[in-house]
C-alpha cells in the first residue's frame, strides 16, 4: 500500500520532534529512515502506525486520509525494537494472537489458525520452537517470532523499528539478507528505521536521511552516498574526511594547499567564503612523491591492516587528521610505516559552502 505524508509536524512539550515532513512511499517499496537517535525517525514510524498522533499534517494510505483510523483499523504491522513479545504466551500463541483477537465474524477457525501459524513459523524457520516461551529464545529467534506474529495479520504495510539493533553482527547480517528476500517474496510495502548507514544502504530501495526532525535527503542508496545533498548527509553516510577551509575562484584553500573544486559540485565552484571539503577515505590516492598540484603532504600516524582494506590514519600538512583506505597490494608496494612522509591526492571531492 502506498503512503503519502504531507507537512507532518509533531511536538513533544516544546521539543519539535518532526517538522515539515513530506514523504511519498510507493507500493511495495522498501524504505529506510536513517538518522541519529533523536532525529525523529522512530516518531515518524509511530505516527504512520497510528501509535502517535501528529500535531499537524496528514497521512494518506493509497490516497485515502488515514487521520481518523485507529491503530487496529490501520492493519499495519509494527515490529518493535525490543520485539514486545508476550512473555506469558508460547511462540505459537504469540503468532496466533492477531488471528485470535479478530471479531468472531471474520476470525478463522481453530484449524485454519493452526495451519497459518505453522506456515508462518516454517517461513521464519522456527516451527520446531512453537511450544517454547520467548524467554527461551535467542535474540535473533525472538526477532523472527516478532516478524511472524506481525505477518499473521497480513498487514498492508510493514514497519520495523531498528529491526536488527540489538543483535550481534553475524545474526544481523543473516537477518538482513533474510528480510530482503522476504520483502521480495511478499512484495509488501516496508519502512524500517535504523541508525546504521550500512544497513540502510544495503537493504533499502530508497533511503530517507533524517536529522533533527527534518528530512535532509531522499534518494536511492547510490544517490545519497555519491551525491549527498548537503554537508550533513555527506558526513553521515559512510566514512569521510572533513576539512574546513576557504573557497575562492573555484579552489579550496587548506593551509598551504589548494585543491580544485571537483566537477561534481556544480555551481558551488563559483562561490566564495568559508567552506567544507569532504573526501571519502577510498578516494584519496597515496604516493611517496608529489603527484602534482592536486596533492598535499601528510604524515602517517598509524596503520590498521586487519580487514579487506588497509586503513591508514594520517595528519595533513595543515594539521587535520585524514583517513585513507587502500588495497593490500598497494600498501605492500608503498611500504608505509608510522612517521612516513607521503602525498595525498583526492580523486574526487565534495564542497559545501556554509558561510558566503
Amino acid at each position: 500500500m502506498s503512503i503519502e505524508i504531507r507537512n507532518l509536524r509533531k511536538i513533544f512539550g516544546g521539543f519539535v520532534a518532526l517538522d515539515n515532513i513530506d514523504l511519498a512511499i510507493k507500493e511495495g517499496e522498501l524504505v529506510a529512515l536513517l538518522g541519529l537517535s533523536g532525529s525523529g525517525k522512530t516518531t515518524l514510524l509511530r505516527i504512520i502506525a497510528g501509535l502517535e498522533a501528529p500535531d499537524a499534517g496528514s497521512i494518506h494510505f493509497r490516497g485515502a486520509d488515514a487521520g481518523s483510523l485507529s491503530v487496529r483499523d490501520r492493519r499495519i504491522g509494527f515490529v518493535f525494537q525490543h520485539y514486545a513479545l508476550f512473555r506469558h504466551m508460547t511462540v505459537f500463541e504469540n503468532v496466533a494472537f492477531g488471528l485470535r483477537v479478530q471479531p468472531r465474524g471474520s476470525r478463522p477457525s481453530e484449524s485454519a489458525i493452526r495451519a497459518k501459524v505453522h506456515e508462518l513459523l516454517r517461513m521464519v524457520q522456527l516451527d520446531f520452537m512453537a511450544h517454547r516461551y520467548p524467554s527461551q529464545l535467542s535474540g535473533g529467534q525472538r526477532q523472527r517470532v516478532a516478524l511472524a506474529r506481525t505477518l499473521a495479520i497480513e498487514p498492508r504495510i510493514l514497519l520495523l523499528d531498528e529491526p536488527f539493533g540489538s543483535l550481534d553482527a553475524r545474526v544481523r547480517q543473516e537477518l538482513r539478507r533474510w528480510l530482503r528476500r522476504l520483502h521480495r517474496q511478499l512484495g509488501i510495502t516496508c519502512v524500517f528505521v535504523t541508525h546504521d548507514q550500512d544497513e540502510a544502504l544495503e537493504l533499502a530501495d530508497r533511503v530517507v536521511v533524517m536529522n533533527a526532525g527534518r528530512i535532509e535527503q531522499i534518494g536511492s542508496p547510490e544517490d545519497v552516498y555519491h551525491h549527498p545533498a548537503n554537508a550533513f548527509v555527506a558526513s553521515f553516510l559512510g566514512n569521510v574526511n572533513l576539512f574546513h577551509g576557504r573557497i575562492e575562484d573555484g579552489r579550496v584553500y587548506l593551509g598551504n594547499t589548494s585543491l580544485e573544486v571537483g566537477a561534481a559540485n556544480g555551481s558551488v565552484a563559483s562561490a566564495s567564503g568559508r567552506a567544507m571539503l569532504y573526501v571519502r577515505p577510498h578516494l584519496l590516492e597515496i604516493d611517496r612523491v608529489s603527484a602534482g598540484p592536486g596533492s598535499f603532504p601528510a604524515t602517517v600516524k598509524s596503520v590498521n591492516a586487519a580487514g579487506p582494506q588497509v586503513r591508514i590514519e594520517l595528519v595533513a600538512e595543515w594539521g587535520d587528521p585524514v583517513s585513507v583506505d587502500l588495497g593490500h597490494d598497494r600498501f605492500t608496494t608503498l611500504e608505509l610505516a608510522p612517521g612516513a612522509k607521503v602525498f595525498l591526492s583526492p580523486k574526487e571531492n565534495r564542497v559545501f559552502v556554509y558561510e558566503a
Partner: protein
Amino acid sequence: MKRVHAIPGFGLTLGITVAYLSVIVLIPLSTIFFKTAAIGIHEFFAVVAAPRTLAACRLSFFAATIAAIINSAFGVAVAWTLVRYDFPMRGAIDAMVDLPFALPTSVAGIILTALYAGNGWIGRWLTPFGVKVAFAPAGVVVALTFVGLPFVVRTLQPVLEDLDPELEEAAATLGASRLQAFTRVTLPALLPAILAGFTLAFARAIGEYGSVVFISGNLPMRTEVLPLLIMSKLEQFDYAGAAAIAMVTLLISAVLLFAANVLQRWSARRLTA
C-alpha cells in the same frame, strides 16, 4: 561449586537471618505447640470441633477471602491509575493508600462502626434496603478490606511501572481491542503480582483483630472471627483452648499461603524462565 562473591559475608548474614527469625518468629510460635500439647488429644478436638470454633473459622477464612478478592480487583485499578496517569493530587492519593498501614486498626474499627451503624452516615442509607453492615458478617468484610488495601496496590505498583507499554501497543497493532489487550496481555503479565498481593492481604486479614472487634459486635456463631474467639478464651483463662485454636489457624493459614506461593511461582516462572 564455589562461587566468588564481590561482597563476602554469607556466613555472617545467614547467621543473622536464622537468629533473628528464631527470636522474632520461630520461638514465639513454637510455644503455641507446647501450650496445645498440655491438653489431651480428646480435649483438643473438643475445642477445635466445637460449633462455635467452626463458625468462627468459617467466617474468618470466608471474610478474609472476600476482602482479599475485593482488594485485588480494586487494587489493580488504583495501582493502574497511579502508575499510568499523571494528574493533580496524585502524590496525595498515592500517600492515602498507606493510611490503613499507619492508622491504629482500633481507630479504623471505631470509625467504620460509626459510619456503618444503623444510624451512621452510610448505614442509614442501607437500613431501608434491609442491609446491615455493622454488627453483621458484612461488617467484618468491610474492616478486613480496609486493612488489606495497601498490600495489593504496593505489590502491583513496581510491576506495573516495569511493564512495557509497547506490549499493549503491539497488541493494538495486531488488531486487539483495548479490552482484549488488557485481558490477554496486561492482566496475565500482572497475575503473579496480583496473587502475591492477594496472599499478603489475605494473611493480614486472617490475623486482624483491632478493627473487627468494634464493627463485628462479636456475636458467637454469627460475627465472631478466630482472633476474637482466641481473645475471649484468654479472658476466661482458657489458655490451652486459645492455643489449640491458634494452632489450627496457623496450620490452615500456612497451607493456604503455601498454595498461593506455589501458584504465584508457577505463574511467574513462565515469565522469567
